């Protein structure tokens, strides 16, 4: 099996990288691209970290792999329960597993949804999206943790996620905290680089080595105004100039890590760089549940208990709000997905949408959303309203929202109460845009090509082809053949092989009617309507604005 490197740059966009390369901040990346290929990489229909990286790891869309969000709601006869998605929720085989079955060795660093880590022989897995408190117990093989602790300067706290800090990044980092916050991310990338360097050199028998540097995403969320010259004032303040330089320093350091990784990979390795999604500015804030309430689809709770709970959770930046389920037909479960769920009627009198009325109800909702106009430009606010079955084909599409909303500026929606429904942000923020990056270099890789729009679905088959493996027939993307030199492709033609294996399963004992809203409907729900109503009120999840 060949040697292949994947460097993940979470949220990377050429809108930011090109000026940095032109200004000499990322000289290695500039040379790498001059000798290799590049192209825009289109993310999942809603460009969000968990579904997008899972698509990259599995070669399947969210309707197949089942990951739509950071969080998931388990609806059971006895109630609803919110928790974080984890590896056990990924319903398709990953590339690490495919490489392992073929007798190869993978290194997987900082990928989300990889905890608890699967026991893939020969693999080294350190998951991302994990608090330091749980890092030790979620590394494969377990003995790897002692190796990490022996590395100079190792700090589990600096390596791992701090969930309060991450939530802050999506909202607003106070100016006085911005500088240490950027430096924290520089330090964190250094830790991941050090671990990768150790693993590449300690046992050089690896085949696929991959790492995600996620500070790119974090910086762009909080520091877009310092990264995009269009938003920098003509006369920047001292603070703004300092922040511009600090952000450039982050990318300068990152460029150095990429240079060293390519050197460590050796002259025979092919190196791929990819992002899960792109980035761009967001200038508006749309309160989706407030809009649904105004248009008669949703009611906030009347009782003070739930309202107080909403206030309490808004104050503590928690992840969900409550609403009056019995009087609600459509609601946004999570701001992270920019999705609207339509509540289907389960029994007479429960107030949901009758199944036979679903299509008409949804069509009317789409028409109303498409009629929303931007208060500044008076143009349509939404670029598109995506139907679930059209963008998330697969057995797990019911875990996703019925409609995915695409605002013109791709901003995340707010799920909380508030006025006005649509407002102009006081300060530009960075947000996820669909157009990410793809780059490749090394022996057998074409030179100087700018490839047409590519799909994140194409990365998994391209990596397997680079390793010399067959591409599973059930992968949804295609090998990016133009990334390879014609002579290389003639010698190494794309081979399509057996389908992927089902993911690891153990005695999950979910009974019929449990696990998802739809399956519960199909099985017939025998919970009391009162219990169901109370617990369903808890189904609203999301980030606060």
């Amino acid at each position, binding site marked *: 099996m060949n040697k292949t490197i994947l460097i993940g740059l979470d949220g990377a966009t050429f809108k930011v990288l090109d000026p940095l390369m032109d200004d000499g901040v990322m000289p290695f990346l500039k040379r790498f691209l001059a000798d290799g290929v590049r192209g825009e990489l289109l993310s999942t229909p809603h460009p969000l970290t968990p579904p997008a990286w899972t698509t990259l790891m599995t070669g399947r869309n969210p309707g197949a792999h089942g990951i739509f969000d950071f969080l998931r709601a*388990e609806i*059971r006869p*006895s*109630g*609803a*329960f919110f*928790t*974080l998605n*984890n590896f*056990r929720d990924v319903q398709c085989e990953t590339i690490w597993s495919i490489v392992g079955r073929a007798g190869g060795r993978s290194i997987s660093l900082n990928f989300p949804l990889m905890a*608890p880590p699967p026991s893939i022989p020969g693999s080294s897995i350190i998951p991302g999206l994990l*608090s330091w*408190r*749980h890092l*030790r*117990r979620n590394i494969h093989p377990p003995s790897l943790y002692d190796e990490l602790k022996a590395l100079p300067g190792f700090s589990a706290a600096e390596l791992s996620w701090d*969930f309060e800090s991450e939530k802050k990044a999506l909202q607003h980092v106070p100016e006085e905290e911005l500088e240490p916050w950027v430096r924290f991310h520089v330090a964190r990338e250094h830790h991941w680089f050090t671990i990768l360097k150790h693993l590449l050199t300690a046992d050089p028998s690896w085949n696929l080595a991959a790492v995600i540097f996620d500070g790119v995403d974090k910086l762009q969320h909080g520091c877009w105004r310092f990264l995009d010259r269009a938003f920098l004032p003509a006369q920047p303040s001292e603070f703004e100039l300092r922040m511009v330089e600090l952000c450039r320093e982050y990318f300068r350091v990152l460029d150095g890590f990429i240079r060293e990784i390519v050197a460590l990979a050796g002259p025979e390795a092919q190196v791929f760089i990819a992002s899960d999604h792109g980035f761009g500015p967001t200038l508006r804030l749309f309160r989706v549940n407030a809009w649904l309430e105004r248009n008669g689809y949703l009611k906030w709770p009347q009782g003070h*208990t*739930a309202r107080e*709970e909403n206030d309490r959770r808004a104050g503590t930046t928690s992840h969900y709000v*409550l609403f009056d389920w019995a009087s609600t037909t459509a609601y946004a479960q999570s701001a992270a997905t920019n999705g609207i769920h339509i509540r289907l009627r389960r029994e007479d009198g429960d107030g949901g949408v009758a199944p036979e009325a679903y299509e008409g109800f949804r069509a009317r909702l789409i028409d109303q959303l498409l009629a929303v106009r931007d208060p500044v430009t008076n143009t349509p606010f939404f670029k598109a309203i995506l139907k679930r079955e059209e963008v998330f084909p697969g057995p797990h599409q019911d875990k996703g929202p019925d409609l995915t909303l695409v605002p013109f500026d791709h901003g995340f929606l707010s799920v909380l109460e508030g006025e006005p429904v649509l407002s102009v942000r006081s300060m530009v923020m960075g947000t996820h845009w669909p157009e990410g990056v793809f780059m490749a270099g090394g022996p057998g890789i074409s030179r100087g090509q700018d490839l047409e729009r590519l799909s994140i679905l194409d990365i998994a088959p391209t990596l397997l082809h680079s390793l010399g493996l067959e591409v599973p027939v059930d992968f949804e993307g295609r090998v990016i053949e133009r990334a390879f030199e014609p002579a290389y492709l003639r010698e190494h033609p794309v081979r399509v092989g057996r389908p992927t294996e089902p993911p690891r399963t*153990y*005695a*999950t*004992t*979910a*009974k019929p009617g*449990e696990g998802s809203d739809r399956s519960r409907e199909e099985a017939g729900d025998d919970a009391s309507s009162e219990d169901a109503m*109370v*617990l369903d*009120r*808890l189904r609203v999840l999301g980030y606060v604005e």
Partner: protein
Amino acid sequence: MSGETNGVKLDRETIFRDMVQILENMTSDWDTSHEGEIRPETRLIADLGFESIDVVQLVVDIEERYQRRDLPFEKLLMENDRYVDELQVGKAVDFLVTHLNQR
């Protein structure tokens, strides 16, 4: 390690021992002020230094230990529409005694 239930009824003592092992393994490198043994009256947040995200991980660890994903943790972790503010080890053991043996 007790592992799967395999249809064998698990007694309270065994489940308590499992819980202590899970909690000790979770918290062994946390910088908490808790000293002494974990007892049924030990509180996860006040005594062991749990944060809300740690409860999510505890659920995963319990599910992995018993190879079960059907345990109705909402009955343990929610009261009157709200997540509980504190949880005693003994209450978690009571919950597991009831639900691990119901299949």
